[in-house]
């Protein structure tokens, strides 16, 4: 039973300033980290493995070479294997190209077609929540998003609780399949020092474009991306302001009058 977890390395902070004149983005140099939502995916996979003798968990990530650090953290949490999917030609990939790249890399793994793929809900930098469902489509397997609990797990199927707009549902989804788990599905474990020592010298395999079944560069990176960023600009703030100052009593009285005149109070 192979359980694959997709993870992404994201910036440590999203604090960015943009210079309105030049459009230059200035980013605080804070360390990158595993996308917090993916920690829930990793924890889900590790718990399912604990209940299923013989299961193995592989963490996979697409990114620049420094993404390797996220894979090392996944090893410290207890995954069995890790794969880095990295190539300059993957640069500029949007959701479609990213999902294509990851699904191609998964096809290289033994038994990929019999198991489970677990993704986090979204990332803190892209926020799209799309890559999971798109990977499932490319692999031709069913998927379930908004999973809040997994009740049963076997080689045949998974029974999961999903959170839909007005209903909560329990579904049975056959394997192979992909699930996107919600935040708070479990409490993610901390990395272990013992595992850190054990995995320190582990060589991490890098998969490049040339390794993939579809080796046409036009399907990857910017060329393989139907969406393109044409411009970035700072958000606008057009607001007419009124600033009040005074004693507590004066301000409270002014606010009371305001609420009455605007008809929020009788």
């Amino acid at each position, binding site marked *: 039973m192979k359980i694959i977890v997709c993870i992404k390395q994201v910036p440590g902070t999203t604090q960015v300033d943009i210079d309105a004149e030049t459009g230059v*983005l200035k980013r605080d140099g804070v360390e990158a980290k595993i996308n917090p939502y993916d920690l829930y995916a990793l924890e889900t996979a590790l718990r399912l493995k604990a209940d299923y003798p013989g299961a193995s968990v592989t963490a996979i990530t697409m990114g620049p070479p420094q993404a390797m650090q996220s894979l090392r953290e996944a090893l410290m949490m207890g995954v069995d294997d890790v794969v880095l999917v990295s190539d300059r030609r993957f640069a*500029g990939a949007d959701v479609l190209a990213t999902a294509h790249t990851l699904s191609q890399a998964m096809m290289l793994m033994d038994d990929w077609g019999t198991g489970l793929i677990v993704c986090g809900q979204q990332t803190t930098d892209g926020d*799209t929540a799309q890559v999971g469902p798109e990977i499932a489509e490319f692999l031709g397997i069913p998927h379930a998003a908004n999973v809040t609990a997994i009740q049963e797990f076997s080689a045949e199927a998974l029974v999961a609780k999903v959170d839909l707009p007005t209903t909560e549902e329990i579904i049975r989804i056959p394997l192979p399949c992909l699930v996107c788990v919600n935040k708070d599905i479990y409490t993610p474990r901390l990395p272990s020092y013992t595992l850190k020592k054990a995995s320190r010298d582990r060589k991490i395999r890098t998969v490049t474009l040339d390794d993939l079944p579809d080796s046409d560069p036009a399907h990857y990176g910017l*060329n393989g991306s*139907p969406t*393109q*960023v044409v411009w970035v600009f700072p958000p606008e703030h057009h607001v007419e302001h009124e600033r*009040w100052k005074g004693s507590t*009593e004066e301000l409270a009285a002014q606010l009371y009058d305001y609420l009455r005149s605007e008809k929020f109070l009788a």
Partner: protein
Amino acid sequence: MAEIVVHQDKIPDISAVADLCPFGAIEVSDGSVVINAGCKMCRLCVKNGPPGAFEFVKERRVTVDKDLWKGIAVYLDQTDGAIHPVSLELLGKARELAGKVGHPVIALLAGTKMGQAADEMLHYGIDKLYLYEHALLEHFRIEPYTAVFEDFIKRCQPAVVLVGGTAIGRSLAPRVAARFRTGLTADCTFLDIQKNTDLDQIRPAFGGNIMAHIRTPHNRPQFATVRYKIFSAPERIAVASGEIIRVKLDAALLASKIETLSSSRKAPVRNIEDADVLVVAGQGIQRVENMALLTELAEKLGGMVGGTRPVIEAGWLEPRRQIGLSGRTVKPKLLIACGVSGSVQFAAGMNGADKIVAINIDPDAPIFKIAHTAIVGDVCEILPSLLEKINAGEVA
């Protein structure tokens, strides 16, 4: 092949170039400047780097014939026969976009026993509503619903597909977009359309610190998801118009091994997105005991209490009351921010409110940049005083 080519001879100072890239993709390796796989092709290095140092080489791409794709389509998100209000907001926007390019507004509705809902939708400016009914569509399951969507797109060839960013929309839209190998931009906050029918998809990025303007120039349909309360709901038109086209799909196309074992309606909760008035707690209220002041004020104003992320993380309010980029987007008539500093992420979730009143002891709090009324003072003292006046006013 599109790429950024580095011309080493045009770089006078190697040590300075790495800073050009916000994604850390420019590196110095063996004395040469190289671009690594972190490149997002934003082309800021081309724009701001030493002249001629970074060259963007365009690719030749196959573009679809855009004249073959007509229509602004909206997915009508339904559970148990009730259409999610975000779908109405999208119909309003679709009508606006359609008007600019002379396209029809078309809609997709799938489920069981949807006849009444479909009739009601004809009051919102739809030209053609495609209704797919089948027992297999009773509960949302990804495979049959994707199959329906696929049929709809092949049948109508819309230029644009708008889907609400609900739990269903966020699961369904990407799968369909991938099936058609086309682009999808999530959580757009602004949409416009060019004469050639290219959709301008604008959304916040980097936690709301910047806005990204995105297009899908070579593919169709162009998918975009939009969250509830980003756009305004259109007025219901008294006279129904448009036609309902019933499509009967073969059961074999709707086959799926996913089973819905049970479905229970969630207890109806008043959502903060639906409140006309919101009283929002920030860390500046200092103690959880002070929440009672906000609750009382919200009650007096006929509104609800919301919170910033730190307040939710401290456990002072349930997560569904969180306002912001990773919480909910709200657009009330009045929002009173109490002790809220006003981070960019918070602002992104509420800066569309009609009237924003902010109370903060710090005169430089960022919230004051977006507040219509800035009250510089101690919220923990102002609120009790205000409530005293309100209570006295009621008695009188």
